[in-house]
């Protein structure tokens, strides 16, 4: 077992894990944070997206041991205390989810986009989100929600 200390959603957290365990597995099984989902376990769907030192990663492709001393943000850490992040609100306003399973991954991914490109074009949104699979919505409303959140942040 290895001992890992990290900052998770703004709080110091430590856990024990086996060297072979992915970050996704530890988040879900050890830390009880089930917002990141397993859709494919090999980096093809984005349902497990988290931010590692602010960069968008698939938690299924990161070993839990790799987050030692680093900063993690999961979907559970996106909303400000007592409220919703503009992305979350716009997803609801735009009906940008049906089953909602891919939604945490999309919101984390979109946050990473807006953090580095505050005013993306539709094409930039689609390119950025091409690593997140949605089977329910056809992406239309998701893209509109992200653009609306970007606009809201500028207003």
């Amino acid at each position, binding site marked *: 077992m290895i001992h890992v200390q990290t900052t998770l959603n703004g709080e110091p957290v430590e856990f024990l894990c086996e060297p072979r365990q992915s970050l996704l597995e530890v988040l879900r099984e050890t830390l009880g944070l089930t917002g990141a989902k397993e859709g494919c376990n090999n980096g093809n769907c984005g349902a497990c997206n988290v931010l590692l030192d602010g960069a968008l990663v698939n938690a299924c492709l990161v070993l839990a041991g790799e987050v030692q001393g680093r900063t993690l943000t999961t979907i559970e850490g996106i909303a400000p205390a007592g409220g919703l992040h503009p992305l979350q609100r716009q997803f609801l306003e735009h009906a940008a989810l049906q089953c909602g399973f891919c939604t945490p991954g999309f919101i984390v991914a979109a946050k990473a986009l807006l953090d580095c490109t505050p005013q993306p074009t539709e094409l930039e949104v689609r390119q950025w989100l091409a690593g997140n699979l949605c089977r329910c*919505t*056809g992406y239309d409303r998701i893209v509109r929600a992200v653009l609306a959140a970007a606009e809201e942040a500028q207003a």
Partner: protein
Amino acid sequence: MTTTAKPAQFKVLGSTPVRQDGVDKVTGRAQYGADIRLPGMLSGAVLRSPHAHARIKSIDTRAAEAYPGVRAVATARDLPDLESKVADLGEGSVNLRYQSSNLLARDKVLYFGHALAAVAAVNAHVAEAAAALIQVDYEILPPVLDVRQAMRPDAPILLEELRTDELGQKGEQPTNIAAHYLDETGDLEQGFREADLIVEREFTTAMVHQGYIEPHSATALVTADGQVTIWCSTQGAFGVREQTAEILRLPASKIRVIPMEIGGGFGGKIGVYLEPLAVLLSRKSGHRPVKLTMSRREVLAATGPTSGSSIKVKMGANRAGQITAAQATLIYEAGAYPGSPVGSAMGVIFAPYRLRNARVEGYDVVVNKPRTAAYRAPGGTNAAFASETVVDELAERLGLDPLAFRLQNGVQEGDRRVNGVAYKRIGLLEVLRAAQGSAHYQAPLAGPYRGRGVAAGYWGNYGGKSSASASVNADGTVSLLEGSVDIGGSRTALAMQLAETLGLPTESIRATVADTDAVGDTEGTYGSRTTFATGWAVYEVGQQLKAKLCERAARLWGVPADQVQYADGSFASGEQHLTLAELAAQLDRLGGPVVASAAVQPKNYGPGFAAHIVDVEVDPETGKVQVLRYTAVQDAGKAVYPNYVASQMQGGAAQGIGWALNEEYVYDAQGRLLNANWLDYRMPVSLDLPMIDTLIVEVPNPGHPFGVRGVGEVPIVPPAAAVANAIYRAVGVRMTELPMAPGRLVAALQAG
């Protein structure tokens, strides 16, 4: 963008409140199947066949049982023997013996990935390592991977006892042809004689998967008193209870199924794969909870994709633009056990057209692939790909606009389908006219290698049994319990229908998806039935609540109940007035709680029609097709929750586009699935699609209190044909094989 046919006549229906489960879903708090945690929970793994077709000579599980951390192992020996009993699971029947064998193979494995054994251990890694130690002695048999091959007299036989069924008449010989169907009307020969133009084409479509993002997951706990609780991701908790009870020979009353939130289903999460295995393991492990979750590889290889198919279509029309004859032969892959959707495909194939002379024939054929399951308008996309491209070719060669040609031959109320049933009020013509008048269709399309295609689609929809119950809270709000799993916003659409019935705002109704112990029997969330049928149950509940509340107001005022009027949350009698909140606060003094429940089995579901328009650009060197613009037009009857109706249309279109351009199962000659992962099974991503415009037409269904028609399935029917027709107009080739992947398109361009 939406349009409605009439001005608003409803107070709540047609509005867009934020969905009630929305906050949980955007914050990651919502609990899906695999998110459940129980004390002492074990994790499971399933051993699956590496062969497509083999006899099982022996299974030795001892090494797995002895592996440290393993608590239970189960094989088919642990499943009760079932007769070849057919259970009526509402929308489709299932042969339970086949379904049991599909869960854990008995004497043969019939597809790559067929489950043989299940292991429960302290964690999933241990379970997987132990499962790999199970020794299976196989006698490998030649696989059958293509329906035409399977139908040959010398083909290897999958199921020795299978005989071709023709409406109750069984064939004599062992066969892979499970069933033969036929619908016929008029005089086909005469119809073709009357045609000035005949088009005949043969089509092939590949097996594809529903592609839900959430893999299957089921957790079961059998306690020492024999009570079974199952938490699972499913489209229908009652269906899980019924199937589990039948397969394990347990009383249904001992089984409680609690549906978790579900991450997509599209028909693939109606049949059980894991639940009975989890129950067996829980029992064998000394009554520990056992969770089984599939990997993506397992989902693709071993759940229920939909049929690949071989379809022949021949249609004739006269110079005046009238279709005079239509003929189709549909051969669908059932997978390892009988039950492809060829029957419903036969109902889709010529559905939009008035036909005096027609013949539609279907074959259900087993092959060594996973047993097919429903996929959104099952059988429909393949069928429409065939018929709507032939219709397009007829129109083009007659020099007629493709939508005008469809309008000329389009069905209306009173017209008969090929099976003889007459349509009631339907909205096909309205949909076609809306498509013609749309901004998309009116806009010119310029540029090389660009083309515009259209296609129509139909789905019959469904009713089925639904139950709901509600109680009035002391503050005048209402708590609603309903039995329909919420895959795409339905709990809110149901809250809205109760709100409409009671004249209250949606926020006053709190809707909860209830488990099998907490609400009456309700068929699953499929068949485009939920807003329609469970909505009707909710409407009945609302009527009962109104009646009971009026009685209480009458008691308060000392007047006969029929002198109390109720409207929009207020009671009145003469000069006296009372709000629902004021009345609710006094219920204890007026006779006690007010509750109501209803169960329905409504028949008057109305079919839905759609027309899709797509502009594409083809790269002639690479064969890549870019979708430039897409418009989906559809008759929703009455759009209760319009954003979510539009979203169904967009989602169906996206799945259809993936089916059209990229998705297919690729098997090697030994029957091993080569692309059981999401890198190689290529579904559309955000970069593959434009915005998808939607036009909702409302031709109310006269059979529903609010005019609702099912909407979920129709939108997947037209896209493949629409894209094929667009490709033809872009580069002049008629594609007859799905998917129209780049390599195939380039080959067709080079050949043509």
